Each structure stands twice: as C-alpha cells, then as structure tokens.
C-alpha cells in the first residue's frame, strides 16, 4: 500500500469514528467514474493490488486467489464483472476485502475497484429503490440509490453480487 493510500485509509477510519447516530454506513468506491456504496460492516479490510494466482477455467472476472494471512481469498474484478472496459492495475488500484453471506456459509472475497472514495451514512428513507432502467449494473445487484451533494451513489447488494452459485451459473451458461 502506498503512502497516499495509507493516508486515505486513515482518513476513512477517522470518518468511521465521527460517524454515529441513525442510519447505515456505507463505504463508497469509484468504478469508471460512478460511485458505488457497500455496507461498511461487511468490509474486512482495504488493501493494494497484489499479484494473484489464476484459477483454471474460472470466469474472466475472477482474477485468481491471494493469500490473506493464511486464508485463500478469491479476487473479483468489478469492472469485468459489470462488463466495463478493462483498466490496467496501477498503484491506486484497490482491493476491498468483504465478507459475503450466502445461505450456507460466510465467504471472504476481494473486489478490485478503481479507488476508494468516502464513508457516508444513509437512512433508509433517503434511499430510492433501484429503477428498472438499464445501467452498467444489473438491477438485481442494486440495493438502492442515494444522493450525496447532488452526486448519485449506487448501493450494491454484495451478497447477491458475489453469490458463488450465481457466479457459477453465469459461467456454465457462458460455456
């Protein structure tokens, strides 16, 4: 992790401490100029990009696995997951390690995003249900839309997004 990222992470941590009161907190990140949010309680850690070990015959957005303190963690590239243009991994590329809850078990996975942005608190009334319209993201994965200073934040449902059964289905339908 670079110094800049570290400073950023510390800044985020401060935000976390300041933020209190009603509403859910969301960590937001940037992906192709759009801002996305995920439930901050699901975030395990934020780290820089490191080389992964590719998994054979996996979908292309599964970049491989890394060693996270002795645990094998799969890494999903969100740009590829959303069929966005591929961006070369650089020093600002960030991996957000999240805990995904599925019916059977909890899983730890990493998602590759362009950059981490901020921490916001949203009350559920401030969120709008996802519209039926097309975007880069499949509406199934969107939990809601929120607004911060005229910016739109897309709140993602990571449980659905990173559901392994769904990932496998997509893989087999592609094959």
């Amino acid at each position, binding site marked *: 992790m670079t110094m800049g990222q570290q400073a950023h992470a510390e800044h985020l941590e401060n935000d976390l401490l300041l933020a209190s009161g009603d509403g859910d907190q969301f960590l937001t990140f940037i992906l192709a100029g759009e801002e996305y949010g995920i439930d901050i309680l699901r975030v395990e850690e934020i780290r820089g990009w490191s*080389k*992964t*070990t*590719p*998994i*054979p*015959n*996996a979908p292309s957005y599964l970049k*491989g*696995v*890394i*060693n996270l303190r*002795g*645990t*094998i*963690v*799969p890494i999903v590239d969100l740009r590829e997951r959303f069929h966005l243009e591929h961006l070369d991994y650089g020093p600002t590329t960030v991996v957000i390690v999240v805990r995904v809850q599925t019916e059977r078990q909890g*899983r*730890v*996975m990493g998602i590759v995003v362009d950059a981490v942005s901020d921490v916001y608190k949203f009350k559920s009334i401030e969120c709008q249900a996802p519209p039926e319209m097309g975007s880069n993201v499949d509406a199934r994965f969107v939990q809601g839309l929120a607004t911060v200073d005229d910016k739109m934040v897309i709140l993602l449902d990571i449980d659905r997004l990173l559901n*392994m059964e769904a990932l*496998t289905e997509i893989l087999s339908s592609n094959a």
Partner: protein
Amino acid sequence: MTEGAYAHSNSQRHCGGVNGVNIDINQFVQSFLEESFEGLEIMESQLLGLKDDADTETINTIFRAIHSIKGGAGTFGFREVAEFAHGVETLLDQMRAHKRSVNPELVKLLLEANDCIRDLLIASRDGVSLNAQHIDRVRESIDELLQGPASADKAAPAPVAPAAVATAVAVSNAAEAAPEPEAEASPAPGAVTGFRIHFVPEHGILRTGNDPLRIFNALADLGELSAHCELDQLVPLDALEPEECLLSWQLVLKTEAPEAKVRELFEWVEDECELVIEALAAVPSADTVDALAEPAASAEERLDAPEDTGVADVHPDTVSDDGPTQDEIPAPKPADTRATPVAETAETAADTPTAPEHVASSAKRPPADTPKPDLGQARSTERRGGGESGSIRVNTDKIDALINLVGELVITQSMLSQIGEKMQNQENDACLEKLFEGLTQLERNTRELQENVMSIRMLPISFAFNRFPRMVHDLSAQLGKQVELRLSGEQTELDKTVMEKIGDPLVHLVRNAVDHGIEPPEARSQAGKSPVGVVHLNAYHKGGNIMIEISDDGWGLNRDKILKKAVEKGVVAADQHLSDEQIFDLVFAPGFSTADQVSDVSGRGVGMDVVRRNIKSLGGSVEVRTAPGKGSTFSIRLPLTLAILDGQLLQVGGETYIVPLVSIVESLQVRANLVKSVAEHNLMYRLRDEYIPILFLNELLGVPGTRAKLHEALLVVVETEGQKAALVVDDLLGQQQVVIKALETNYRRVEGLSGATILGDGSVALILDVAGLIVLGRQHSERHHQQKDAATAHTEAA
C-alpha cells in the same frame, strides 16, 4: 465417574432439593454421558476377555464400570438406565461373590445388557424414542436369571447380602405376577394399568422418621393396592431390635396414575431402600399381536433395503444380530413368550441350576429380531456420531511439549528483535552472525512447533481397532466359526479425521475376513489346519504413510471363481486377458460379490467398491494379496494426515503448481521419436512398452504455452486409479511438504485441483488433482473434436 464423585454429586442434589441451591447440572450430564460410554466400552472389552470365575479382577472391573454408570444415571435422573444397570449390577455382584458361575450365555446376556444401556443413554440424551421391546426382553432375561437359581435354594437360609435378598424376593414376585397379564382384562391394550413395586427398606428406616405404612396408605389412595410382606430377614425374637425394620414388601398397585406419581411417594425414602417399580404389562390382544407382526414385516424389507445405502450395511451392529433370521420366525405372541419361560423355570429350577438360564436365553430369542433393526440403526449412528465429535482428548505430554516450544519461540523472537535494534545502531558486522544463528533457531522452532501441533490430531489406531473384538466375537458365534482376532501395532498414530473415515471400510474388511475368508471349523480340520481361524489386524508406519493390514488364514481368494463371476456380472469381457493381480483386483469392482448365498453378514455386492472409494477419497489405496488355502491379506495405505502433503513443485506457463509426490511415477525428458499422435490432436508417449496419453497442462489450466515446444519440456508421469498420464511441464522446481488449504472455503471446488497452499514467499500455489486432470484432458480433447467436426460441417455446407 468414580464412586467418590458420585457420592459427592448425590449429596449436591440433596442440597438442591432441600435448600433450593440451583446448580446447572447440564455440564455434568455431558461428562457423565462421556464417562458412561467409556465405562460401557471397558465393560464390553472386559466381558469379551472374561474366561471363568477365577477372573475376579475382570469381574471387579466390570462391576465398577456398571456401578459408576448406575450411580451417575441415578444422580442425573436417567431413571431407566439406573434401574436397568441395577439388575446388571446385581448379576455381577453374584458373580463377584462366586454365587453365579461364568458361562457363555451369561456373558452374552451381559453384552446385550451393555448394548441396552448404551441405547437407553443415547435415547435419553437425544430425546429419541427407542424400541422398548428389546430392552424389556433383555431386562426380563436378567430378571428371570436372577429368579432362577435362587428358587432352587429357596429352602436354604436367606443370605444377608442385599443383592441375594432382592433375588429371593423377586421369585415370589414372579410367581405372583407372571399369570397376571392373561388374567387381567385391560380396557386399553398397551396402556399401563398399574405397577409392581418391590420395596426393601434399609433396617434403619424407622429411625429417620419414615413409616412404610404411611407410604402404603398414600399408595392405596391412588388405586387398588395389594401388599405381600416378606419375612426372610426376620431374626429370632431375642436378637430383634425393636427400632429396626427387617421387613420388605412386594406391592401390586392397580392404578391409572403415572409412574412419576407413584415414585413421588417414595421420594423421602429412596436413598434408604431398594426400590424397583415396574409397570404391569398390559394384556396382549389381537391388536398388539398385529402390531408386533408389522415391524417384523418391515424389518424384512429393511434387510433388503441396505443394498443402496452404501456403507451403512457394513456396520457391526447390524451384523451382530444373533437371533435367527427374519423369515425363520413367525411373529411372536407376547403372551407365549412371557408365560412359558417362567412356568418352565419353576419346573426345571429344582433339577439343575443352569437350566433356567438356558430356558431364559432360548426363550428370549424369538422376539429378538423384531426390534433389532431400529436399534442397530440407532446404535450405529451413535458410534459413528460419537466418533466424529468435535472434541479430542489430548495426551498432556503433547500439550507440555507445545508449551515448551512456544516458550522457546518467544525467546528466539526477543533475541531477533534485540539484533534488529543493534543493527539499527550500526553494529552490523558483529550482529550478522548472531542474526543467522537466530534465524536457524527460529526455523527449528517453527518446524518442531508444526510437528507438535500436527501430532495433537494424532490418535493411536486402537481407537479404530477397539470395536473389533466384540464384532468378531458376535460374528463368529453367529456364523458358527471359531475365530481368533489378533491385534498388533495398536499404538500406531493416525490423524483423527483419517481415523473417523477409515472405521467403516475396516469393519467391512474384517467382516469379510470372518465371513468369507475363514472356513468353517470342519473344513479347516479337513485341510489340516487348526479349527480356530486367525484374523490379524496390523498397523505400522511406512515412509510417511500408515499401513493397515487385515489378514486371515482362510481359503484365500479363488481366482477362477472371481473371474467366472466377473464375466457373469459383465464386469469384464469373457475373452479379456487378465493377470492374476488384475483378477484379484476385481473384488473391488462395483456390484461384485462371490458369496454363494446372500447372507445376513455380507454378500450383498456392495461394500468392496465402497471400501476402495472411501480409502481413495482419503488419498490412500487398498490392495489384496492372496495364496490359495493359506489366506488373504488386504493392505490399506493411508496418508498420516490430510492436512499436509508431500508435493513436487512444478512450473507451467510462469505459474507454480504442486503435484502430490505419491502420484508421481517418474519424470523424464521428452524424446521426440517416442511421441506418437492419435487422430492428430491426441498425443501419446511411448514409455518402454506402454503408451501413455500426454496432457498439456498449459491447455488444461489456461496458462500461456505452446505445443510446439514439446521437445524442450519435461514429462511428469503420474498414476492414479490404475490410469497413467504424462504431464507436460516447463520445469521441475523442488519437493516440499505443503499445508493443504481448501479452495471451497471462500470459493468453490475446481475440477483438476485438490486445493491450494501458500509457498515460502507468501504466494498461493494450486495443488493439482491427478484424477481430475485426466478427466479434464478427456473433456478437452472431446471438445476439440466437436469443434473440428463443426468446422468440417461448416466447410462442407459452404
């Protein structure tokens, strides 16, 4: 549980009752159950070793085990268990006092009682209902046995020992109560109509302010009470202490009240008396006979059922069934079985003391089979379930060793950080040597720590072997064979997970050895062998593996018979040429059984293939050696642990992969003239006189590489399940032990991979699964051909 502990908790219960002190006894119940199961195991193994009356030490050990169980069961409210154990204890007490001689029937009954107690404990623990008929049957057998000899010496002066008193009293009880089931017309068949209460107060009961009369009055309020007073213990008038109560009572209470209500009345005296309360059996009606016939029919169905349940049928408990087979016996009439033995006992008892036992044991047989399948099922799940519990008992020495190691690790760590500080202060040269010293020490510490931590999971294989003496004992009795089981290498240690999974395959192999391997005694004598067959279980370590051998000195495998059967069943073609080795290997083929008759014990054609599959899934192998007339030996090779693997590191397309060392046959450089192509795309390598398919790992794993550079590559020849394949790799790196990490934890299973590991530099390397790779290779070439076909079709169409 020791007797002391029992006494202690017993007194605690009293505190709880009187002073309202609330102690959560659940935690004690758990350890009581564990200890009881251990006690039962001890009892079982000791019973099997019990030879004659002179073996006082063994009898004492059994007695102590059952006594602790009884005590604990009473304390924790397992009333049924306590009552049942009491009968067994009484029997053992008589054996201990040489009032009853040891004979095979008695041992058998005690073994059955052992099973019953286990079933009762499991039933109360899990809250499941169990088939009470079986329990009742054994209980009745015990009661009858207790009544038998005593009636023979009824004329003799009554002994003072309480157990003997109980026996004497029980006789009159039986004489009175036996006809009852028939005599009594019951409105609701099967419902409890009353209780038979056997009440033997201690002599000092009156001094504690308890008057039996008051209890009887209260009992009479519940229903119709008839009392019979026993005067056996009464002493001559001049020796009589007026404050002592030397009487005991036999009460029959006809009531609709539940047992708890009756027990409540004895609450104050239950520690000062011997109390047995049993429900009066209801009158058997046409309904109940039908009800009994029904399970018999379903049991018959169940006998066929296990065909598709895989290993379920290999369990000892289902085979330890020693009654006659299902079709031989008609649905038993409860009235007959209950009434006759008692009547006969009375008649024959006077002649010979052993006769009643005989009658009892033969009489108890008919109903035996009806409840058995249920119980067998329940027990098998227990044993398996118990074996796979999450906890593990660890030898304290192992823990001490670990603590020492961690201590050393801390010292090394502080030493290294000191060096680090000094280096910061520019004392480099002097420190460098020390640093290396520290690093060496750290390396040694970590390695030892790892070894020690791994060894915590290691248990002696005796845990798996323990069940066999009983199984072989039951099985040989059932089959009318004489079999001696020899165990060796029981202290060989094995990973707990491997141990749990190897249990069922072992059971199957031992069962086969006894059933198919060992000849009947006559056949053995004819062949000039000792009539007693030997089954030998041996375990030992061999180069990072554990070997388990099951050998018998029976007839050995019949080559021609196996081949004939295999052809019949379509396992092999009739004209196929097979080596002896390949023929013997056929016994592991699915749907193969050479037993002439489908017996209760084995021969359903499932099993051996399941055995092999289970062992394979543990990363092991099983093979058979045999000599006609001399016997056969099944050798199982298993990895010591599932967590660590000896791996060969290889490089393909810039990535590092690991192949388990056990599956590698050899590695060689490609010689172009030995590469042959089949249908252009599929390449074969000629290795001596064998053609081996070449698998291009880069294609299967989706990493960069090209077929053109085959001559520069290396081939790693691997073998699994008799199939060989040559893997094309860029380079061989080195061999090392790797810790296996599952990909399923955070991802899913991947075809061709058995897991991942973390290399020294912190990067992840994938562990290849050779069997999966061969499957992948086949799919890959099929896909290639399909694409080619499609392309051809396309061109033709154009």
